[in-house]
């Protein structure tokens, strides 16, 4: 059974390598976070593979770890627990139907008969989405058995009564409540059996899909004889199980390759990507499309569902009358692919290639993709029986892994971070003004206008403004190229962006977000200028990665309206938004900032003000350790491979280059001053010398590596040898094994994160995990620093810290909260 309900279309953006090049010459702008941006957090593969278009699918384009998708999904299954005893009035759903059996009220499923077609309607009560849970499944089988037994009924239509959601997946909590491998396997076996019955149904079943059809929902749909989907942006099909560290466990791994071909099936199952209806039609995943309707005599969504049902009923009739064939005409390309796939040698090559690619991308840290390949292979090479067996076994195994628990935890965390815990603001922000049209400012503008906020983008110079406007336009235009927007929508969205050099119109602004250079006096000047022109209710938000908000607010006439909004670059790709509140920030200001952030599509953590807030502060000690490791003579390349093989998306040395050596120096000096010895380790001298030699990282073309336009494999900057040699310190052999180097980095990160929770910078461990994974690239397979402590064991973390403390001193002293957890094994961050 494949979990993962999804209600929102995630941004299937392929991040290009060039995404950040515009940063050149923007050195100070955006600071720390700006760099992290270029260090794409979620799987490098994503950067490199072009988006797939057309029916040709190569197995070599998948992005196994695109976790952000998972995380972007709002889940409705959470409300399942309350899944209501309320019975719907049978007369309501069945009013058009005859047949007494149809009148039996059920909680999740209702059905009626139109002529000789049974219309089965899925509508889980008290929830925005339908999720496959035990109750729904048993009702469903009950209904299907009645349909199969009835002489009057010759075919059936499956449809959801909820606009925007067919079935969003299986119920994650159903898995979470399983204690053993056997229980999970059993769930899978049952799902397989149910869907097999559907597949073998002699009465044709048409799945009428509108809205999310994911995971178990898709597995249900592909077990039916025919699929009709609304051509709506909300209608997405996919198998996102891999993003939760599991696999499609209700026959999906077996049916999908037969339906769309092995390469496309691998692509779907290994990336977990959402597929829009029109592409699904091209792939052969759905048989017919229905256009969404506009207003008629009813609201559009309601009428569209009705229409979908009418069309589906026509097709169901046609199928049972044998007027319509379920065989699809395959295109030449499809025929060639299926011919090629009939040659065992070709198949073996494909498995091999796919496995190699997965190995390379996951570094063996994620078990699910490999098992998926294995299960598909078993099904094809050894037949259905073996395939189904293998599927359920592997499903059980995967559900028990730490990786899966970590990923599911992240998923739940993200759902929480998509809510506004401060409630609705008194006045909804509709007019936004952004100061500074740099990379960050323009990025914020882009995610604002395309969500319908009227936005002013102000810069000091025409050239700077023009660059920013072009960035917004390009961002929107890229969506047009990917067919996520029409050119008309692009124009219309772009028209709600006003570019200007003065403060005209600021009197209407509900929120001003400044993204000017990271310089306190400049921020002060801007704040004073803005406060002179904005209305009383207007919030002033500062996008800074390290400057304390209370220092910025110090010159404000109305500090309760000042807040920090730390975006991560590139803003349109990075999902995290760190909101920083001071003691003076009012609740309504917080509510307003979170509301705007949510509108912009962000996952939000709210933290207290302090040097480096949460994200920058966690990264700093780790960076300091990076310097020390380099000083101890570890090659940058070696260090990179150690960090990436631990699960970080970008190597540590590369990260420094991407962040910008000058920025790193700036931050480590600042935070070093604030936190003293704990942030020590490597010598800032290393960074200083690099800056003085002009090795600023990617933006200057040289850092630890040499960056050349058009050169893919970067070479180590040999000029660094001298600097490193002059600052060399002798390594301590007792803590310098590969594993120790990895853990020195990670434990400092984790320790600082836990300290942030202890000090109250963080309100919850969940926010800590989400911030670390989505903002800093903490290995998703570990689920974030807090989940890591829970799964790895606090005692073991403390033991390691103590060992390193013995070698290096205070920088590794475990914080009290971590010690508390180590001392009482029952204490967990996640209970």
């Amino acid at each position: 059974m494949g979990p993962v309900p999804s209600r929102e279309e995630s941004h299937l953006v392929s991040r290009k390598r060039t995404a950040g090049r515009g940063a050149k010459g923007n050195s100070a702008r955006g600071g720390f976070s700006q760099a992290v941006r270029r260090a794409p957090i979620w799987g490098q593969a994503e950067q490199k593979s072009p988006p797939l278009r057309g029916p040709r699918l190569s197995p070599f384009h998948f992005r196994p770890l695109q976790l952000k998708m998972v995380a972007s999904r709002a889940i409705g299954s959470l409300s399942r627990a309350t899944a209501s005893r309320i019975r719907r009035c049978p007369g309501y759903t069945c009013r058009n139907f005859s047949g007494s059996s149809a009148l039996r009220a059920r909680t999740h499923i209702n059905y009626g008969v139109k002529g000789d077609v049974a219309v089965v309607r899925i509508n889980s009560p008290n929830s925005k989405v339908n999720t496959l849970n035990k109750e729904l499944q048993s009702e469903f089988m009950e209904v299907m058995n009645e349909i199969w037994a009835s002489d009057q009924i010759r075919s059936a239509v499956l449809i959801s009564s909820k606009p925007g959601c067919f079935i969003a997946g299986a119920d994650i909590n159903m898995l979470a409540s399983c204690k053993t491998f056997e229980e999970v396997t059993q769930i899978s076996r049952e799902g397989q059996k149910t869907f097999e019955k559907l597949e073998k149904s002699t009465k044709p079943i048409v799945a009428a899909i509108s809205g999310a059809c994911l995971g178990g929902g898709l597995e249900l749909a592909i077990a039916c004889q025919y699929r009709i989907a609304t051509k709506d942006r909300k209608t997405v099909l996919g198998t996102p199980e891999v993003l939760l560290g599991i696999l499609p466990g209700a026959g999906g791994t077996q049916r999908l390759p037969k339906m769309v071909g092995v390469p496309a099936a691998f692509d779907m199952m290994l990336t977990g990507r959402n597929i829009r209806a029109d592409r699904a039609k091209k792939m052969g995943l759905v048989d017919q499309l229905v256009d969404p309707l506009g207003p008629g005599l009813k609201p559009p969504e309601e009428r569209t569902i009705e229409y979908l049902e009418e069309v589906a009923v026509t097709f169901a009739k046609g199928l049972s009358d044998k007027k319509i064939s379920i065989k699809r005409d395959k295109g030449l390309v499809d025929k060639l692919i299926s011919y090629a796939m009939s040659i065992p040698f070709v198949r073996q090559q494909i498995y091999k290639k796919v496995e190699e690619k997965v190995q390379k991308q996951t570094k063996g840290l994620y078990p699910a993709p490999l098992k998926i390949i294995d299960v598909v292979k078993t099904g094809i090479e050894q037949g259905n029986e073996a395939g189904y067996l293998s599927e359920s076994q592997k499903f059980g195994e995967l559900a028990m892994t730490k990786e899966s628990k970590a990923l599911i935890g992240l998923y739940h965390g993200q759902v929480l971070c998509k809510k506004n815990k401060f409630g609705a603001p008194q006045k909804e922000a509709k007019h936004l003004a952004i100061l500074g049209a740099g990379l960050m400012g323009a990025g914020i503008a882009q995610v604002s206008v395309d969500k319908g906020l009227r936005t002013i983008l102000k810069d000091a110079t025409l050239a700077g403004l023009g660059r920013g406007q072009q960035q917004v336009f390009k961002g929107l235009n890229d969506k047009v190229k990917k067919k996520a927007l029409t050119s008309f929508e692009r124009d219309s969205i772009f028209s709600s962006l006003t570019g200007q050099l003065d403060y005209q119109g600021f009197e209407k602004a509900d929120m001003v977000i400044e993204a000017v250079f990271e310089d306190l006096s400049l921020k002060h000047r801007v704040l004073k200028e803005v406060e002179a022109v904005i209305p009383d209710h207007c919030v002033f938000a500062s996008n800074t990665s390290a400057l304390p908000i209370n220092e910025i607010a110090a010159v404000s006439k109305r500090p309760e309206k000042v807040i920090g909004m730390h975006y991560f670059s590139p803003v349109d790709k990075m999902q995290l938004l760190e909101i920083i509140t001071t003691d003076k920030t009012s609740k309504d200001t917080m509510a307003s900032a979170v509301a705007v952030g949510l509108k912009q599509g962000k996952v939000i953590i709210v933290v207290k003000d302090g040097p480096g807030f949460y994200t920058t502060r966690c990264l700093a000690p780790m960076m300091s350790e990076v310097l020390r490791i380099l000083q101890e003579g570890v090659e940058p390349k070696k260090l990179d491979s150690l960090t990436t093989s631990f699960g970080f998306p970008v190597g540590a040395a590369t990260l420094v280059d991407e962040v910008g050596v000058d920025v790193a120096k700036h931050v480590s000096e600042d935070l070093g001053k604030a936190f003293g010895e704990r942030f020590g380790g490597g010598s800032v001298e290393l960074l200083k010398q690099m800056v003085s030699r002009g090795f600023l990282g990617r933006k200057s073309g040289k850092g630890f590596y040499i960056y050349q336009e058009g050169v893919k494999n970067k070479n180590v900057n040999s000029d660094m040898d001298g600097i490193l040699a002059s600052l060399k310190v002798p390594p301590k052999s007792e803590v310098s094994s590969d594993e120790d180097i990895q853990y020195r980095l990670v434990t400092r990160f984790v320790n600082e994160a836990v300290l942030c929770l202890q000090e109250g910078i963080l309100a919850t461990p969940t926010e800590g995990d989400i911030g670390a994974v989505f903002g800093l690239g903490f290995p998703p397979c570990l689920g974030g620093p807090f989940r890591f402590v829970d799964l790895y064991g606090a005692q073991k973390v403390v033991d390691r810290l103590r060992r390193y403390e013995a070698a290096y001193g205070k920088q590794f002293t475990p914080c009290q909260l971590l010690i508390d957890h180590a001392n009482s094994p029952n204490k967990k961050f996640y209970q």
Partner: protein
Amino acid sequence: MTSMLTYTFKNLPSTSKWALQFFVRPLSCSSQLRAAPAAQTKSKKTLAKPNIRNVVVVDGVRIPFLQSGTSYKDLMPHDLARAALSGLLTRTNVPKDLVDYIIFGTVIQEVKTSNVAREAALGAGFSDKTPAHTVTMACISSNQAMTTGIGLIASGQYDVVVAGGVELMSDVPIRHSRKMRKMMLELNKAKTLGQRLSLISKFRLNFLSPELPAVAEFSTSETMGHSADRLAAAFAVSRLDQDEYALRSHSLAKKAQDEGLLSDVVPFKVPGRETVTKDNGIRPSSLEQMAKLKPAFIKPYGTVTAANSSFLTDGASAMLIMAEEKALALGYKPKAYLRDFVYVSQDPKDQLLLGPTYATPKVLEKAGLTMNDIDAFEFHEAFSGQILANFKAMDSDWFAQNYMGRKTKVGSPPLEKFNNWGGSLSLGHPFGATGCRLVMAAANRLRKEGGQYGLVAACAAGGQGHAMIVEAYPK
């Protein structure tokens, strides 16, 4: 000039609730008199407005509307417009030098004659001293030509205006691709052989793929037929209803043609071909035949077919409009007044073809009339499904409240007063020329069938719409 009072006894159709009406109409050139309220006793009011000149249609004509690719296929748009203008001259005998201004509507422009009004006027023998311009507003282009004329007359700028429209779908501009055009333009500027060769070396075969005129809505990339099918589905208009309505349109058109009611048609001797005397798209069929057709846009289950859609048409229309006093001074007996009109626009995606629904209540309100006051409805029939969807929308309180910001529905027009002489589905729909046909049909029907007010309404690409009140000129 003297003022006049015209007393008219009028018999209204039996369907009307007024059996006999008496009404008084002040017709005057003197502003004082015009300003004076008309003495109305037991009469339906007139729509004359104080201080605004009355605008009348003296007469209007059209050449037969032909399916594209038939007898007009070798002509150019201005040829058709010319024929309509000549026909108008013949019909009205208006002295050419009295025409102050000429306005034509067209949609798909022939680039050689982008101001087709001027080319046609010159060719039709109008004075070369008469200025002319061309307007475009999709299917309501000639409505725009008329209302532009109304504006010019009402504001006192001119007295005599010719308005019309033309469309030739037998030939449309098909362009080179943008890349090819760019290369050709650059080649023009290239000075040396080297520059030319380097430009030519950039040539790729795909430059040659032509660019067809957009059949789709620019803003949504959706073709109109597709939108109509969705609209029909949104209002749950069945295929059968659509076919029945289309059959009605063709049957009524046939009847009107046979009875010689389509008096606005003027014969056109096509150079090198026979003289065309009547519309050739009228083809009453049977419901069985129509049911066999496959959907044309949403395949395989849509409801809009070739039989229940208007077809691509060649044609042109023209009419002579004047200030009332001018017409009377010249001794004309005008056919109708052109009264209040509105343009509306709405969502071009989901409400593309609902213009009449939005425009009708607005224009009625403006004129102070109700649906019951209207004796002749002439709506543009783009698709059966579109007409029936508009009926349902007009008859829905829910729609009026949720989408039009009105308290109540306006009500759907009674079918017995609706497009009684056929419509665009059967007579044809040359985009730029249909507006004038609608107005003349309303005017002629009011004269023939009796009644005072006609309502003309049409939808247009871009999600726009138009409605106008035509008031019969007292006999």
